[in-house]
């Protein structure tokens, strides 16, 4: 039974991935039927040069032929070359992945831990002071654009107090290695990470809180109390494991969003990750890069979805069936 569940989910994920590939390909062709014209609008090229560019980008031949060529290349890992830098897209993306994972991954973990903790305590005893302040805080951060928080933090800690650097992955021209380099990167990561953590906390807190509130009404908690358990034990051993289920799904999904990254926040802090790559690609416009980035982020989201489903199946025995 469990095997069928797993295989079903994997098949679904592969199907969606296939759809994304098709979608990715046709998006750029369908929306504009002359990608080369768009690409080089404003720049003077002779018809011959345009034709040559078309060949270079495999844009001759029928749509279908182009699609097959595209599939073939993608499977081999060749996502084309960046227009702006001339380097392979896969290389550019590869270099940008780690800074993004480092920054957004840390923020995701932190925000989940803190948000869940706040949510548990806010929801367990409603209308307490913690509930009111945590809820207001979450609603507030939910209403704010994440990059604006970054601007404010930058203004306070970097400009006014001059405590932290204004951006970048590490100090420019740094020759530090090993632990010293890591420490330097860590200092640079503080503000952007804080920005993202604040932005993400709200969602976890709200979801966890309402999940706990739903759980609090359950009868099996009453039975646990009747057995003679301490209130905190009842909460931690019975309520929380049940209440965590939706949060786990959410967390796994959000990890998928990691690679789509904090585009705007990376821009504020000049963080050399996928977000910044995307921004530069937009300004180009660097279509091969955009296409490659889109594929990578979609794929990571599909994988994260799959893991979330599998994880949920692992944790909730009612889902896996019979």
């Amino acid at each position, binding site marked *: 039974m469990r095997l069928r569940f797993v295989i079903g989910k994997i098949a679904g994920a592969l199907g969606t991935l296939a759809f994304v590939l098709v979608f990715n390909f046709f998006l750029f062709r369908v929306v504009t039927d002359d990608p080369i014209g*768009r690409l080089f609008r404003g720049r003077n090229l002779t018809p011959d040069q345009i034709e040559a560019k078309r060949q270079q980008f495999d844009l001759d031949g029928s749509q279908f032929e182009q699609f097959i060529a595209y599939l073939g290349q993608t499977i081999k890992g060749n996502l084309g070359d960046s227009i702006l830098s001339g380097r392979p897209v896969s290389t550019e993306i590869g270099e940008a992945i780690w800074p993004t994972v480092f920054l957004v991954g840390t923020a995701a973990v932190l925000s989940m831990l803190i948000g869940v903790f706040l949510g548990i305590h806010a929801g367990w005893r409603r209308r307490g002071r913690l509930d009111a302040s945590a809820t207001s805080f979450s609603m*507030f951060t*939910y209403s704010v654009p994440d*990059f604006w928080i970054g601007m*404010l933090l930058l203004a306070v800690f970097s400009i006014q107090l001059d405590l932290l650097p204004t951006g970048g992955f590490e100090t420019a021209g740094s020759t530090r290695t090993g632990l010293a380099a890591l420490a330097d990167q860590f200092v640079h990561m503080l503000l952007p990470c804080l920005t993202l953590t604040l932005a993400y906390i709200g969602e976890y807190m709200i979801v966890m809180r309402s999940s706990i509130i739903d759980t609090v009404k359950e009868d099996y908690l009453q039975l646990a109390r009747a057995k003679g358990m301490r209130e905190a034990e009842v909460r931690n051993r019975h309520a929380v494991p049940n209440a965590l289920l939706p949060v786990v799904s959410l967390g796994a999904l959000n990890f998928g969003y990691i690679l*789509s990254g904090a585009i705007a926040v990376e821009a*504020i802090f000049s963080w050399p990750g996928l977000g910044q790559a995307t921004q530069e690609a937009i300004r180009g416009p660097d279509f091969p890069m*955009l296409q490659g980035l*889109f594929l990578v*982020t979609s794929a990571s989201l599909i994988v994260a979805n799959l893991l979330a489903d599998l994880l949920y199946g692992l944790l909730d025995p009612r889902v896996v069936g019979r």
Partner: protein
Amino acid sequence: MSAPVSDGPMQEPSDPEGSRDPVDPLHFSPRAFARARRRASLRDFWRAFRSDRLAMAGLITLLGFVVLALIAPWISPESGLSVTASGGNPRWASPSWDFPLGTDHQSRSGAAQFVWGSRVSIFVGLAATVITIAIGSSVGIVAGFFGRWTDAVLMRITDWFLVIPFLPLAIVLAAVLDRSLRNIILVIAITSWPATARLVRAQVLTVKQRLYVDRARALGAGRAHVIRRHILPNVAPLILANVTLAVPISILTETTLSFLGLGDPTRTSWGKVLEQAQTEGAVLRNAWWYYLPSGIGIVLVVLSFTLVGRALEEILDPRLREDGR
């Protein structure tokens, strides 16, 4: 308060519009009765809404901003936005009587940008949401009501859209299309409708299960009639609450897209102001008067919609109401 409006008899008698006294047995008209009941429940609704002070604060704030946006041409001439007209002003001036919100890198008035920016931000937020809800609700209702193949196909499409990461999709779409207000609205709508469709479909499924729908069908009601009289009134409250919660998302998306440079270059919006703040280094120059107001405006508008939306949700869905509220 949210009792289904369709409990009444299916057939309306030939007795037209209404009688003076809806409960007068001799001149009883179901339509008048339903109207009176609707009026009473609206009054209850308003009373419940008024008791939520936060929601009222949100509503007032929203109305304030809408008024501000509407009277913009009168309180702040559009010339304040033009670079050429601002030539004589100081650059990066901090707030003063002449310029309550200072000036920017091109000597334009920050206050003018704030006021005119509100128009675009709010308008795009509302317009995009309306389209989102229109598409999402239609898909949700059709999928939920007709079920089977229609449902399966529509839901597959919806799921595909949900799987594609929201922001990258919006960015890609905005990048390949021309940069205009219309396209931004379209992009937001295209990326947001699946969530609404899912919600509406779930609600339609719940309503469909209720017995009175079966009874209506047994009585011979046509499908259009059932949708109009039974499904819609019970789904409408959910859609309404969803609208007020969807507007914040639209506004925030527009802000982010504008910030990334994908907005309409000929108009200013709060997101655009922030974009310029970023590219011209307003933060580094400590020009707080430039990047603070737009952000605050966004927060206030979004927060207000959220508060109002939550109050609506709680009032309209009796299941969400907590005891003793």
